[in-house]
């Protein structure tokens, strides 16, 4: 028996949508603090589920105090000076630097994908290899990278490039192939050469989608970065989380995790806005 549509055409209003979208957050936070409260009543020294006050104190400490293994700062310095010498800032800076290097190294990946999609000979040379590399679990190469490149910065950045690079190459390749052939022929009839077609026609058209693809891979970039930092590093956000795990420092780990999520959200937001600003003609479907 057909009952028609009960769900597909049942659209919530604006305020209902807003309330529903925050419902899971509210539920999760409430559940956490309920459990934390109950555990703290049982054991006031409880560390696995820190209270809000414990987390605030832990985060304040991380944001204004240097790491235990570093020199004590000038206690008379301004809050800004203390923040710039703090554990949180130094860890953020170390992770941010690796993140920026990795993102810069994705530019050649985009250009390679573009050339592979546009120039059949380049595609013939690289496509099969990248389809193969894309299937390799990058983390399984971590020991090889540490042996080959040592445990310093290079191996961590290469891990990110190996992990995300092939995906970006193949995404760009597919986007390039998706540009209608008419556009390429038209550009030639207007006097463009091979590279003018590549950079002034095709790249400009696919760039907003490439940026979206990179945005969708931000989490993968951070995943590989964190894996590298947790295993072999002396600074960085993931290094700190791994270190604090040994001391059950949940009062700092939870704010650190939220801090990483916030940073990633801001990077994503920035890229989304930049994309909209740079490509006003582009409308996401």
């Amino acid at each position, binding site marked *: 028996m057909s009952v028609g549509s009960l769900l597909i055409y049942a659209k919530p209003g604006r305020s209902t949508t807003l309330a529903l979208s925050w419902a899971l957050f509210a539920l999760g936070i409430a559940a956490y603090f309920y459990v934390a409260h109950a555990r703290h009543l049982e054991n006031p020294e409880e560390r696995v589920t820190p209270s809000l006050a414990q987390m605030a104190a832990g985060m304040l400490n991380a944001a204004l105090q240097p790491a235990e293994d570093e020199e004590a700062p000038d206690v008379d310095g301004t809050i800004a000076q203390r923040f710039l010498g703090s554990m949180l800032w130094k860890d953020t800076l170390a992770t941010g630097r690796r993140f920026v290097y990795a993102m810069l190294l994705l530019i050649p990946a985009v250009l390679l994908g573009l050339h592979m999609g546009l120039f059949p000979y380049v595609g013939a040379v690289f496509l099969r290899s990248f389809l193969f590399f894309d299937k390799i679990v990058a983390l399984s190469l971590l020991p090889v990278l540490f042996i080959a490149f040592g445990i310093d910065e290079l191996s961590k950045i290469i891990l990110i490039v190996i992990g995300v690079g092939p995906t970006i190459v193949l995404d760009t390749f597919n986007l390039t192939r998706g540009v*209608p*052939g*008419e*556009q390429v*022929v*038209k*550009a*030639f*009839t*207007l*006097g*463009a050469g091979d590279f*003018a077609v590549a*950079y*002034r*026609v095709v790249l*400009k*058209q696919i760039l907003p989608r490439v940026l979206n693809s990179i945005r969708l891979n931000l989490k993968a970039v951070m995943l590989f970065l964190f894996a590298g930092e947790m295993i072999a590093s002396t600074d960085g956000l993931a290094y700190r989380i791994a270190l604090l795990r040994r001391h059950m420092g949940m009062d700092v780990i939870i704010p650190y995790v939220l801090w990483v999520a916030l940073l990633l959200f801001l990077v994503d937001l920035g890229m989304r806005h930049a994309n909209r600003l740079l*490509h*006003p*003609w*582009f*409308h996401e479907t």
Partner: protein
Amino acid sequence: MSAAMIHFDNVGMTYGSPARPVLESIALEIRQGEFVCVLGQTGCGKSTLLRLLLGAERPTSGRVLIDGREHRHPDRSRGYVPQRYSLFPDKTVLDNITFGPEVSEFSLLARWTPNFYRRRRELRAVAFEYLRRTGLREADAWKYPDQLSGGMQQRVAIAQALMTEPRILLMDEAFSALDPGTRREMQEMIHGLWQSLGTTVLFVTHNTHEALRMGSRIVVLAKETPDHGSRVVRDLEMTETSRDDPAELVRRLEEASEGRLLKPSPARFGLKSRAAAV
């Protein structure tokens, strides 16, 4: 009579494996300044014929010559207006129109020189003139293609193609996605431009009325049997008297394009037959 500018020299084209013939023994000569409408049913190889002339594809047999020379790649001697995707979506109307001269004269790095900005001002002045000729307003110049209707997009595409002053303009079902009113307007516009510029036009269409209205010559492609490629089954030069009985002419052309090949009797319709059809 002037010598042929474009020469399809016994051209054949097959696709795929096993080979599927699309065009077969195409022998066609087009003089400078002609407005040739290539008529035929969907899938008969009209667009393939145009792509061969563009140099976007190579014939399986025979040669396509322009001024006695084979052109193996698309270049700016032939303007192109396809049915869809004719404009670059990332560029404004004005940038679409000036793209041709800009890309020809300035490399990516040369765009940052003062000379570029001076030249761009000149090019934009010419582009505005083409905008006006194609019936667009100045205010449309700053819009992106997706902010324009289909008809306006095709007007821009024509202005874009004409901006490089091609000797040959190739149009592939350029108006087929437009509503009848806009289509009629566009037909009149392109016909007027052809008369004033004298560009050689090859216009691919499956619409017999459109071909009759616009072409100075109509070439009909059709397959004799499904296993063969299409051939030129009618090649008619239009004269004033040939348009006297359009209904009958439409019937005859449609019969030809459907492959129901009747013995040609061009004199009956006031037509000059250019090739021994069938």
